[in-house]
């Protein structure tokens, strides 16, 4: 009974507060939407990646689904390639998109479980323009010390929100990949084909590592 009454008072209080001051956090609908989007992504990641006794291969395929559903995979892939995207042939483009997804999935499956998890706390969401926003979150380290800052950049694509970048302690996943990939292309004389070969080998070796 006491609990119910508390709940009732709490609810009334909540309604009153929102009547007086309006919603304090995320006044902008995009900001509110972005915040819920990241919170639900984190929930799904916990469910999909931290299942006890789940096989590695099962976790990889779950992460692949999560990644495709919530990230602007092609948008990120094209941006990472930058000016070299225009130079690539149709065949190179389609192979690149497949390899990009593969590589991210195999190299991030373990890292991503650490970025989300139950210790993720969203601090705020800020709209950057009409269709993109930044969601700021913090992850409490199990080992103590200051929490890790993880900022999620989300953008509207086909009326749905998608993650376009993850920024950890100021370092962007997309920017880092772009530097990495373009350095390889330059080394290969500006040829996208050279990057594809390196990507093929890398994905293969990362897969073998995962299978261990």
């Amino acid at each position, binding site marked *: 009974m006491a609990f119910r009454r508390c709940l009732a008072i709490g609810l009334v209080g909540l309604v009153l507060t929102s009547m007086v001051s309006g919603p304090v956090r995320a006044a902008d609908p995009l900001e509110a939407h972005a915040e819920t989007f990241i919170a639900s992504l984190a929930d799904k990641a916990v469910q999909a990646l931290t299942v006890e006794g789940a096989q590695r291969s099962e976790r990889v395929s779950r992460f692949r689904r999560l990644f495709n559903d919530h990230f602007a995979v092609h948008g990120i892939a094209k941006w990472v390639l930058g000016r070299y995207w225009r130079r690539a042939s149709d065949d190179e483009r389609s192979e690149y998109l497949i390899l990009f997804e593969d590589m991210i999935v195999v190299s991030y499956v373990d890292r991503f479980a650490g970025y989300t998890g139950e210790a993720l706390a969203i601090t705020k969401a800020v709209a950057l323009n009409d269709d993109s926003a930044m969601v700021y979150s913090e992850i409490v380290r199990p080992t103590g010390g200051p929490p890790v800052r993880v900022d999620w*950049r989300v953008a509207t694509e086909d009326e749905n929100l998608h993650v376009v970048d993850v920024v950890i302690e*100021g370092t962007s996943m997309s920017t880092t990949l772009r530097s990495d990939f373009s350095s390889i292309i330059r080394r290969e004389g500006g040829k996208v084909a050279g*990057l594809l070969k*390196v990507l093929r080998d890398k994905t293969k070796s*990362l897969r073998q590592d995962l299978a261990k």
Partner: protein
Amino acid sequence: MFAGCATMPDPADKEAVAEFKEINDPGEPAMRAIFEFNLVLDKMVLKPAAEFYKGFIPPVLQSGVHNFLNNLRTPIILLNDVLQGKFERAGTTLSRFIVNTTVGVLGLSDKAAEMGMEYHNEDFGQTLAVWGADEGPYLMLPIFGPSNPRDAVGLAVDFLTDPINLWANNTNREEVVWARTGTRAVDERARNFDVIEDLEKSSLDFYATVRSLYRQRRKDEINDGKASGNMPAPGLGENSPFPMTIDGSEISQSK
């Protein structure tokens, strides 16, 4: 051929020229050689030391060492807070020192953070940036790792203005400086052990990845962690159209 400089792109290719300027690593071949040297040194000395430290020293002791080293850095952080005109942060640094040196027993425990006063780092390289100094071309320093002329000057000034170093050098106790520097290197390496392993394994070009990460981290530190919304990102074009300033001092003062 042992070329010391990166080859300039064809000046007619405007995009390639822009990319060359953005990478801003004119000594790349030489820098890569130094990077390889540092990696060998790391695998021979620092990595095994960090592995041992991580595996055999009790976590409580590890965090004690980390807190103690952070507390010893107070004079440098405080000086640079003030030089950057960040008086609120200077106050935090000073309060942290008082709390941690007393209640935290000589800085071994970070009681101040538990009271809501989180640690932050400052150095003279960041101060130079806030004063408007350009970072200059990328540099890979032997032993010290990724840097640039601005941060290398900062490193030297930090060393020369540190009271403990001054005291040790004036009283012929160089071993104190060595012990502290060594412990700090092992502590840092051990704390970032998994991240480094991961990056080395998953990046296509580890050198280029480290170069990019170093610049991003420095930018983030200069802006006191408040500028990630300004970064170029997919779907938003090369230059984000937002009126926010990237100037560190302004962003931090508006807080």
